[in-house]
């Protein structure tokens, strides 16, 4: 009674899992117990989808493949989860592109600042490159079943930011462990302040930083909308989440079980990926309702930001963790898309 449908669903799924275990798992212990860590809180849509997928996998493999989740970041940061996977304490995780980029640098490419002009461009590129990135990640030791959109980050600030000039003498946040954003800020002649995500709210409050960036959904969940007044509506950088399992563990599964895991989990991940776009659209409306004013950047100004940032690319290419070949593939796809989809003239 009175339980919300989500909670009820979560509970039903848990029961399903339990029932499946009882019915199917009597014969033997699971051939494979795959322990997966994630920052997503239990009960979130992410976890509901993952648990639903796990229940399906368990049933379809007759109990041979069981996934166990550690939600809410209880296993630590991306780096800590990767370490635990290395020593066999965990077998998989849901990562940020940056977090897993430590193992396969090409995952960072979609997040190159101001690279994409629109979500349509993202879709065109991802349709071609996602499978290639997944294959590359697999060579690097992780099996993934697809990427999940986090969306474009926008600029958030207490004063309207319409130009690079507006950002001067302001402290601009750069996430910990994000060298590309750091280089980008430096290239724009700004003074970046490196902080972990969890310190941004306090940083905005105390004036340690003046400008942050986040997708609308992230801004709401992290409650940054309580500390900023303006949102600059430019696609600063594209983020995504990656659900991945240790390839060595995956390889121990029977071929048929591997096929089932891939098919089932991919289906749930595609669902999450699709929902993300609506989520960000709705979240942006909520930000506006909460009193945040939207600021737009002059097109000519934006073009000059992009030019400046492109000046950083040669330095990126020199980095050992930068996949220059894949970056060129991406640029070629973008160029092709822009050639065939010229922007409407005003």
């Amino acid at each position: 009674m009175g339980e919300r449908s989500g909670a009820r669903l979560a509970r039903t799924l848990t029961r399903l899992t339990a029932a499946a275990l009882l019915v199917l798992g009597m014969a033997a212990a699971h051939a494979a117990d795959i322990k997966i860590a994630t920052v997503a809180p239990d009960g979130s849509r992410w976890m509901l989808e993952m648990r639903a997928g796990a229940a399906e996998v368990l049933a379809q493999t007759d109990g041979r493949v069981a996934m166990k989740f550690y939600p809410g970041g209880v296993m630590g940061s991306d780096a800590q989860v990767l370490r635990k996977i290395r020593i066999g304490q965990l077998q998989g995780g849901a990562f940020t592109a940056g977090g897993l980029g430590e193992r396969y640098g090409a995952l960072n490419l979609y997040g190159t600042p101001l690279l994409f002009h629109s979500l349509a461009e993202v879709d065109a590129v991802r349709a071609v490159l996602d499978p290639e990135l997944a294959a590359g990640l697999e060579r690097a030791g992780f099996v993934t079943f697809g990427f999940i959109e986090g969306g474009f980050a926008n600029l958030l600030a207490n004063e309207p930011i319409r130009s690079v000039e507006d950002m001067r003498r302001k402290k601009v946040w750069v996430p910990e462990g994000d060298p590309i954003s750091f280089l980008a800020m430096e290239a724009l002649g700004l003074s970046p302040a490196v902080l972990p995500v969890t310190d941004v709210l306090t940083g905005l409050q105390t004036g340690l930083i003046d400008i942050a960036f986040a997708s609308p959904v992230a801004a709401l969940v992290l409650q940054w909308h309580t500390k900023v007044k303006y949102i600059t509506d430019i696609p600063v950088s594209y983020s995504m989440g990656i659900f991945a399992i240790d390839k060595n563990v995956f390889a121990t599964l029977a071929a048929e079980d591997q096929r089932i895991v891939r098919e089932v989990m991919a289906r749930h991940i595609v669902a999450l990926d699709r929902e993300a776009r609506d989520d960000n659209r709705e979240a942006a409306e909520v930000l506006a309702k909460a009193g945040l004013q939207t600021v737009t950047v002059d097109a000519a100004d934006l073009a000059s930001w992009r030019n400046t940032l492109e000046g950083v690319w040669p330095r990126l290419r020199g980095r050992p963790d930068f996949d220059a070949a894949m970056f060129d593939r991406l640029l070629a796809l973008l160029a092709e898309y822009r050639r065939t989809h010229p922007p409407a003239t005003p």
Partner: protein
Amino acid sequence: MALASVRAIARRLAWVAACAALTAGCSSLIGGKAADTLAAAILNQDDPELVASGVPAYLLLVDGLIAQSPDSAPLLSAGAQLFALYGSRFAAPERAVALTAKARRYGERAICLVHDAACNWRGLDYERFVAELERVDDKDIGPLYSYAISWLSHLDATSEDWTAVGELPWVQAVLERALALDESYENGALHGYLGILNSLRPPALGGKPDVARAHFERAIELSGGRDLSIKVEYARRYARLVFDQELHDRLLTDVVDAPAETPLFTLFNVLAKQEAEELLATSKEYF
């Protein structure tokens, strides 16, 4: 982490039993001893189904009384709490949205009647809203409390909506202000709600489990351990969030072993005990 996936955060807002709503509601309705006896009969009831089918009659009654005396803050306050309680705890999800929306409107009208500035609170940005709350004094804690929990009940009912996630900090600010005015109000219920709100998000997403734990502990202390639903929420929210199975199982075993019959807490303790058994049954699998 794909933050886009965390939409359901507010869905997890559960409902620490708002027993007091019934007491407050009924007293305002009929006044005096009869009301207290009736409220006690409901709160001491060990059959939740009976209550679920009986309370709607009082919702109709409170609607009628409010129509008759639209400027009565105590009546509006009681209406806000009754509709919030019924909408979030007993009604089917598809009806909960409308019921809790009414709760919220009553809650807003109640605080607006006793505190003029509150009539213009809707739509204020966070900073100004918090500054406004500072001006509410302790004589108005009743309507402030009704305002908070009726709003919270509506966010819970609409938790599929991003608006609910967006408004959480505002409601939390109201609860914090009420707590600053009187932390023991309604047997420590404010601490219970703040325990839940602070354990909705993991630390990586800005949650504060340590703050949540302190609130839950204090809520148990202030209720003298009589309110079993606080222990259930403590286990479900905090212990699961930080993966503390020992604490989780101990709290829930306490609830299962405790007698449900406690004056004015029986109804919600019966529900709490059912939930404790369900949570215990999935403990091994979760941890």
